[in-house]
């Protein structure tokens, strides 16, 4: 699981890869995509947000699920791939980022891979 070496998680199933202290990419965990089933639409906008805010939603054939902000910061870029081909999230959840954050703070709640895996066992 080399690709997950530097990845952190939220309890709400987002993953986070930091570029530096205040810049990061986020996506949806493998567990999230398998629970949701085939993702057909992702709705996200560039915005300033606080930790825990709903920043958008992902629609699958089963249901619509909210996507939560892992920290406080500013979303400055949305991955065009997920707009054209949301199925990429199912095929390669950790290779498919949703959006890019800058000016990040309030990131204390993030979980390590081990902590995250423990949390989804329940």
């Amino acid at each position, binding site marked *: 699981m080399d690709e997950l070496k530097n990845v952190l998680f939220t309890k709400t199933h987002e993953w986070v890869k930091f570029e530096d202290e205040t810049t990061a990419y986020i996506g949806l965990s493998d567990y999230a995509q398998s*629970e949701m089933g*085939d993702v*057909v*639409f992702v709705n996200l906008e560039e915005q300033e947000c606080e930790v825990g805010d709903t920043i958008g939603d992902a*629609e699958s*054939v*089963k*249901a619509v699920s909210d996507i939560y902000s892992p920290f406080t910061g500013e979303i400055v870029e949305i991955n065009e791939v997920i707009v054209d081909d*949301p*199925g990429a999230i199912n095929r390669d959840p950790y290779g498919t980022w949703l959006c890019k954050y800058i000016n990040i703070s309030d990131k204390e709640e993030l979980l390590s891979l081990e902590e995250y895996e423990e949390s989804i066992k329940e």
Partner: protein
Amino acid sequence: MKLIYETSTKDHKALKLPKCNISYELDSKYLRNEKLELPELSEVEIVRHYTALSKETYSVDDGFYPLGSCTMKYNPKLNEEVASFEGFSDIHPLQDTKTVQGALKVLDLTKKYICTITGMDDASFQPAAGAHGEFTSLMLIKKYHDERKDYKRKKIIIPDSAHGTNPASAAMCGFDVLTIKSDNGIVSKEELKKVLSDEIAGIMLTNPNTLGLYEKDILEITKLVHDAGGLAYYDGANLNAIMGISRPGEMGFDCLHLNLHKTFSTPHGGGGPGSGAICCKSKLSKYLPKPVVLKKDDKYYFEENKESIGKVKDFYGNFGIVVRALTYMLSLGNDGIKKTSENAVLNANYIMNNIKDLYDVAIDEVCMHEFVLDLTRFKKETGFSALDVSKRLIDYGIHPPTMYFPLIVHEALMIEPTETESKNTLDEVIGILRKVHEEAYSNSVDLHKAPMTTKYGRMDEITAARNPILKYGDK
């Protein structure tokens, strides 16, 4: 199959009328310049077209239809007969009320009956469907707070097991939605206490809830909300479990909507129209959609109540549906209404208890009128999902249950048999559910490919959702 427009042939007619022998002239401003694009067919062509269409669908007249939360009960044909009486079907909403006293009596009587069943004081039949009734009820709640100049109440509490229409209606009405987590399938008082404040406009609940469980703390829950200054709304989608046994009005609810097309046996599921009648306590009465039917000197009349939230539909709602619902209630009577709910609950428990050795039940307790299976383990062990099982049931002539709802259960199948199914049917269904389980575990049938016996096989739902084609042909 062809569209009716594609079957059209110039000058084909179902009726040939003699030429009009009265001369008349109409002002050109009343005349249409363009030709009406209507299909031209003979009577037999029309009959064959619609008969062919009806064969491609499935209704409760065809067989078992356990679509959880939808109460797809059989609709007695007597309802149709009564609704087709001239005095109900050949009247106009703008007719002088003196000439439609019988129709107004239907509205008044039905109001009395649904208020008796729900323990409420007043009602309106304007909302055309369930979600419309939810929205209208929330407008009453909003108006109630606004009239008291309590403008800070902007939040509505909704449990995570709620029908998806609840948060949607709240948002449409301008409220913010606060979702609270359930505890073992029912509302957690602790979670509720955490979110109560003077910004709460109210709570939306259904009881029994979407897991088919009775909210046993309902009196405490509504009291907590009332003490915080909020109102309580009851989603009547699950009323079929409790009629004649317990009443939302006595549970502490202030307003509610009913689905006449679920509980009161009127057409449903493409067959509509629906009726999302609402009921309320007297403190909300004056805000009901206008006009309301009142009676003075033995005569019924319409009153434009001044403090009303206004109209939510033209005229008085889907009147023909109210006639059907009234016919249903009158044919059942007090005892029949109660037996209806008892049998609905008995039927659900009968199926549940005869399959739960094979399938996991989400919350293994005595259920109300419906229950939810959790196929998580089943999927892990067989590789087949709730979707695959649903599709396989189609091969056995059963309408699939509600899938993937409520959201708090993974791989959910929600089964609501209703009271109108006989023991024979239930036994047959139990046999089929057990057989599908055997097929999955023995891998004798590839359930991923089901349905295999229908005209169209497994639909590609993913492509349909990702690349929807929203127009027919080139037009």
